[in-house]
């Protein structure tokens, strides 16, 4: 007996929340995004193909809804200064982040273009393969590879400029 649709959905919720947290502008907005994805998934459960990866299907739904929301807001430039500031002003997020560099990392991620952010969240944060990430983003593997490279380089540059990477590496050497 395979797990029910709802059980599979619950199992993947923590990872979907993490993915959404990296995409959305606040924790509340991220959970709204995941909730919308759950509701859409249930209405389209018949479209899920048995034998394919359920988590990839759900990641794709989250990403699709997020892109729709961005378009609806007519956000022309992802990662704008305003967006980074909004993340920093989210009290719930600030309370839960004990380490300064982790806040810096999230802010640095928020400054990246949407497609680079998605690639980083799927591969670097969630640990999916390039192939799996390419299927979710619906682009060729080579595109994921180049997006990741640009994103990793840009992220590193931002973290070095902000000092988070330097502090982290110093901590590692001290240990």
């Amino acid at each position: 007996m395979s797990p029910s649709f709802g059980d599979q959905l619950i199992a993947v919720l923590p990872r979907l929340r993490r993915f959404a947290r990296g995409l959305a502008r606040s924790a509340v907005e991220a959970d709204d995004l995941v909730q919308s994805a759950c509701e859409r998934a249930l209405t389209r459960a018949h479209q899920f193909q048995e034998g394919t990866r359920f988590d990839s299907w759900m990641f794709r739904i989250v990403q699709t809804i997020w892109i729709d929301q961005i378009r609806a807001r007519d956000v022309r430039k992802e990662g704008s200064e305003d967006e980074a500031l909004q993340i920093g002003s989210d009290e719930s997020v600030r309370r839960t982040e004990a380490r300064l560099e982790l806040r810096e990392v999230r802010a640095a991620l928020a400054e990246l273009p949407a497609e680079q952010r998605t690639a980083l969240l799927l591969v670097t944060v969630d640990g999916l393969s390039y192939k799996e990430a390419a299927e979710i983003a619906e682009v060729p593997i080579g595109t994921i590879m180049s997006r990741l490279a640009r994103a990793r380089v840009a992220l590193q540059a931002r973290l070095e400029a902000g000092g988070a990477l330097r502090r982290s590496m110093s901590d590692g050497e001290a240990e």
Partner: protein
Amino acid sequence: MAKPSEEQLIAYLDGELAEDERAAVALALEEDAELRDRAARLTESAALLRAAFDEVVREPVPDRLIAAARGAASAGASVVPFGARLRRHIGDRRWWIGVPVAASLAGLLVGAGLGFFAADETVVTATKPADANLASGSWLDNIAGYHKLFVAAGPNDAALVDVPANDGDARKGAQKLPSDFRLPNLKPWGLVFQGARFLIVEGRPATQLFYTTDIKALGPLTVVVGTSNKPDIAATFDHRDDLNLLYWRHHGHAYALVGQADIGYLWNIANDIAWQLDAI
């Protein structure tokens, strides 16, 4: 080789290069200190990024999302209380009211432990519990079978429990948990440790811990903790008859939960266990 491109270097660090290309980048790294420094910084920034989002997967999942996943949000159906809400509701109630000791089922145990080493991370779809004739069953079958025996026989069955909760008093010569073993504290969930048994999971030693509770929605629970030399896997759900199972591997350890509790409960308890045992 010529200095690898950023794409090649990052794909190398992500383990995504074909063998020949991987060897070439490895050679370039050996010969080029500047490149090694670049790789170290990329690795560190990736680790920082993971750390920045790591806490999200350890947070209790909000009720509204569980309800949405069950299709209950729009219908306004009642939501199962999780996490903090459960802890607040249970307060300081007395948890353990005792498990009636049923007739000994030791005879059924003879063959139950024979064949639980074969399973890998593949979700096993068998629905029958472990029994004396199921020598080829998976370790999931085995722990589910023992869970049922534990519920039926209770924690005082000497044939079932290697380490009683009050070791030394109940049985002379009883084994003890290894000194470096960390017992998850599940009292905040209303779960009281009753005893443990030793087993082998995927060829490695493991311990199955039995907990009981008087919270009917949660019911008795077993937790399996063992070492593993296999890659990490995310928490995966499975079923055996009326039992829910949740298992995962992380940082050289394998874990599993078995019980009749709603998967939402299991999920939050699993997060708690992962936090307790991995936060070293």
